């Protein structure tokens, strides 16, 4: 289990989540091509696969097998841990 804070501490992983939140349910191939073509991030497929593994371990990405392919989905639920830990509140006057 990877900590959600550690999982988010990487620009490439945050970009993967940006892409999945724009279009959910992508294969590894699609994620790699959009990262390269839209963001100029030309990592190896293996590197992206490892980033997805970290995100999945933190619960931020879930996978589903459909037909013969594996699709990746963004699950924002673990992000609630951040707002629960530091809820937004008004500053109290001294």
């Amino acid at each position, binding site marked *: 289990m990877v900590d959600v804070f550690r999982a988010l501490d990487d620009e490439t992983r945050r970009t993967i989540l940006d892409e999945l939140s724009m*279009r959910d349910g*992508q294969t*590894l*191939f*699609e994620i790699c*091509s*959009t990262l390269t073509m839209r963001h100029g991030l030309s990592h190896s*497929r293996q590197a992206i696969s490892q980033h997805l593994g970290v995100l999945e371990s933190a619960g931020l990405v879930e996978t589903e097998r459909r037909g*013969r*392919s594996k699709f990746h989905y963004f699950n924002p639920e673990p992000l609630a841990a951040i707002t629960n830990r530091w809820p937004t509140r008004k500053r109290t006057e001294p």
Partner: protein
Amino acid sequence: MKIALTSLFVDDQRAALAFYTDVLGFTKRHDIPLGDDFWLTVVSPESPDGPELLLEPSGHPAVKPYRDALAEDGIPLAQFAVEDIEAEHARLTSKGVVFTQPPTDIGNAVVAVFDDTCGNLIQLIEMKRDENHADAR
């Protein structure tokens, strides 16, 4: 030197011929019996003398693990160029073809990926002719 022929492994050569001709719209070029199998090729009607696509039997034991691993990651094994990818996506979807990736703008082109029902993922590509992208490559 030029590319004359390239091949895809297919689970069933007769079913593959039907898909590649009736659904995709290619033309049969060669269909020659070879033992239990066939030397079976198709060409694009847009370039009948262009490269042939060999629809090769998938019986070799290396084929299944190779294709399963690539299909899992969504990796296509061939790319076909189309004039209007949105129209092709609509046409093929209406014929029951399943896309693993809908038409997606990747800057200088729009791409999509579908399952050829014969064990392969295939990418479609429409290159943009927009002048704004003419020098983007």
